[in-house]
């Protein structure tokens, strides 16, 4: 009887062990199966109209990658699960494509319904907003597929952008008197502006035009790059090639000339234009005098003049390539700059600045919301030194030139262009030549851009601007109130310094207000009782014993040097 009981117990134990073993094996198999399942990309391209960003639940934001900001909407990449969540909470959206694997998407400017119809016959098209379409095709080289008068921009793919919360639709701002309060005239900038030579600009354009074509992927484009590089080298400024590949394994080079800053060399002002060209007969003849030998010539002329000055911040003169293919050169540079955490203060991009369809011709400036300050500063500086009518437009959809990749990376950048929509009848044609250009207009725009760039880079002042500015911030809190304190430190300026002034703003690079009532004699300052949720920006000036005030130091954000 007893042995029978034992057997039963043994059987029970055995049964239990067997069950446990089965469960264990089942779990192992499940884990193996789940992990070995092919990872479905499940990524879809979705358009989300603006003004809804604040309704997006915070926990969903990391799952939504904004790949392109436009004037009225975001183009985002997300999953079908997140899409269903958006539907649940009533966020309006439009699915643009459901299978992203192996595709390259391009934004295309579509000025008319005829263009749209033509585009539809060439590949897949989704209208994302007025005059802006998303286009993709199986052909690897989209530039080769599209007719000459289509402007394109490849969608960023490698570095997803954070979905920024603040956004406003485009609005056009005419010249306003309040914007035009006279900037402090700097005689050194005046002198530089006066040195801009129409003859030099013409000769640069002629030289670039003489390469017959500068279509990226052709040897002539590379020769043109070498010509610019050699010119920078002759000027005695640091020059470098910035090589990159694009489309179906073509390669090209951006040409970079560097004028290191004296006070804060890690802060950079970029002056740029693309040197590659395009036409209906692009492999043989694409003179591209207006598009964009004019902008390239302006960069070269500015380099010639500005190399003789010393500035607080570094100036980079960049001639981009493969712009006509979809902004590949500038995209390459901007992505690397972001990865290297390059402190780019602002980018002045000149593209087509030589054709005047009417007189007097005005300059169109395009900025996005983040770059509005830069547009204002450009207008202020330009109007202080040059008689030029400027029309500024805030429009995030104006993405068809080399400023746009900088926008994508969060940098401030502007585009200076003769007209948009374009009025040049020779645009992307074989007769876009020097004789069609109004060189007086090109000279005036170059002068305005030089004034703005010099104003941004700041000719060294006496006394010297404070350098090595750092900012840390911390939040103090009680049960019901919190305040932020910013701690600023900087290096002492040389010479007879009586003290320092501290300026603060909550809008980067604009509306600085002095916050100290008397001169600060130490090289540190604590700014107490600030609103914790507001970002503050600071600049510091040095004041010498003769009560002369220096240039602003580099701008620092209140938490710029916080470690987390």
């Amino acid at each position: 009887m007893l042995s029978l009981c034992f057997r039963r117990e043994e059987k029970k134990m055995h049964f239990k062990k067997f069950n446990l073993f089965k469960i264990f094996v089942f779990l192992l198999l499940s884990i193996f199966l789940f992990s070995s399942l092919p990872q479905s990309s499940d990524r879809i391209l979705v358009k989300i109209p603006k003004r809804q960003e604040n309704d997006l639940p915070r926990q969903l934001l990391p799952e939504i990658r904004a790949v392109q900001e436009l004037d009225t909407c975001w183009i985002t990449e997300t999953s079908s699960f997140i899409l269903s969540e958006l539907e649940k909470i009533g966020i309006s959206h439009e699915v643009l494509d459901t299978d992203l694997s192996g595709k390259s998407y391009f934004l295309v400017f579509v000025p008319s319904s005829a263009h749209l119809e033509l585009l539809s016959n060439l590949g897949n098209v989704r209208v994302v907003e007025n005059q802006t379409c998303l286009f993709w095709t199986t052909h690897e080289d989209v530039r080769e597929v599209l007719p000459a008068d289509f402007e394109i921009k490849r969608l960023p793919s490698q570095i997803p952008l954070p979905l920024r919360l603040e956004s406003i639709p485009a609005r056009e701002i005419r010249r306003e008197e309040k914007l035009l309060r006279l900037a402090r005239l700097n005689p050194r900038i005046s002198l530089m502006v006066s040195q801009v030579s129409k003859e030099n600009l013409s000769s640069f354009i002629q030289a670039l035009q003489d390469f017959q074509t500068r279509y990226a992927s052709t040897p002539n484009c590379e020769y043109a790059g070498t010509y610019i590089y050699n010119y920078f080298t002759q000027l005695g400024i640091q020059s470098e090639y910035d090589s990159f590949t694009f489309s179906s394994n073509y390669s090209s080079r951006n040409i970079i000339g560097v004028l290191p800053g004296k006070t804060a060399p890690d802060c950079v002002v970029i002056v740029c234009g693309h040197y590659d060209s395009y036409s209906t007969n692009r492999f043989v003849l694409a003179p591209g005098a207006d598009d964009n030998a004019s902008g390239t010539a302006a960069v070269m002329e500015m380099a010639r003049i500005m190399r003789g000055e010393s500035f607080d911040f570094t100036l980079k003169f960049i001639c981009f390539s493969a712009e006509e293919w979809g902004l590949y050169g500038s995209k390459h540079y901007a992505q690397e700059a972001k990865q290297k955490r390059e402190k780019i203060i602002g980018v002045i991009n000149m593209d087509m600045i030589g054709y005047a369809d009417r007189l007097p011709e005005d300059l169109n400036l395009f900025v996005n919301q983040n770059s509005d300050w830069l547009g204002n500063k450009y207008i202020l500086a330009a109007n202080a030194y040059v008689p030029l009518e400027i029309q500024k437009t805030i429009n995030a959809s104006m993405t068809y030139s080399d400023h746009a990749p900088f926008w994508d990376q969060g940098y401030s950048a502007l585009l200076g262009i003769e007209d948009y929509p374009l009025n040049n009848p020779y645009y992307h044609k074989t007769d876009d030549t020097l004789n069609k250009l109004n060189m007086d207009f090109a000279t005036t725009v170059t002068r305005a851009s030089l004034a703005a760039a010099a104003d941004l880079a700041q000719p060294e002042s006496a006394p010297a601007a404070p350098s090595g500015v750092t900012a840390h911030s911390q939040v103090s809190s009680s049960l019901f109130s919190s305040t932020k304190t910013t701690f600023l430190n900087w290096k002492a300026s040389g010479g007879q310094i009586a003290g320092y002034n501290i300026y603060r703003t909550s809008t980067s690079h604009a509306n600085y207000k002095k916050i100290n009532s008397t001169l600060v004699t130490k090289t540190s300052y604590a700014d107490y009782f600030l609103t914790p949720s507001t970002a503050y920006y600071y600049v510091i000036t040095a004041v010498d014993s003769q009560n002369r005030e220096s240039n602003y130091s580099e701008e620092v954000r209140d938490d710029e040097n916080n470690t987390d």
Partner: protein
Amino acid sequence: MKTTQTKKSHRILVWTGIFLLMGILTQGRLFSEAQAKSPRFSISISAGVFYPLQESFRKLYGSMEWPGSFQINYKLSREVFLFSGFRYLSSHGETMIVGQEYMPENHPIKLSVYSAKLGIFFASVQRRFFIFLGGGASYNFYKERWEETPISFEDKRFGFVAQGGAEYSLSRKFSLVGRIEYSSIQTKSGSKLESEIDLGGIEFSLGLSFKF
């Protein structure tokens, strides 16, 4: 989260109302049972130690506060009493850094909480001991001030109290009171430290009671 707390506050008020109503409704029946000559009122003054339940409160002001209070009890029947009282809590502390600290920075702060409470308790008399247990609502005014700056915050909120304790009769008129009280004051306000602050806690107090 806020909706849950609003519901909780409503529930507290409803239960307090029911509690008071029960006491008032039973008053008539129980009056007859009441001893005609026994005192109907008692007033007690007490002081004690208050332990805040929220950690942020303790971090800023310490874990022991010393409030003072007085309470008037009105006998509805032998076992049922209405109570009403007032408590004042004042505490000094220092601000603290939330997140990354770059440099020590402490600002002196002061918190004052004024609470008026109304409720009902049930009592049981065991020889010289009088044991009670009850609850009610409180109306609270609180103010926090950064003492060396103009920064301050003040607001008013309803709360909830539950109390229990015992009285030991020293004589016909006087007795010693020991009381433990739980309170909750959900302010629906906060700071970077804590998004919603509860000023409630547990209070142990000792005092003297006088019957009349």
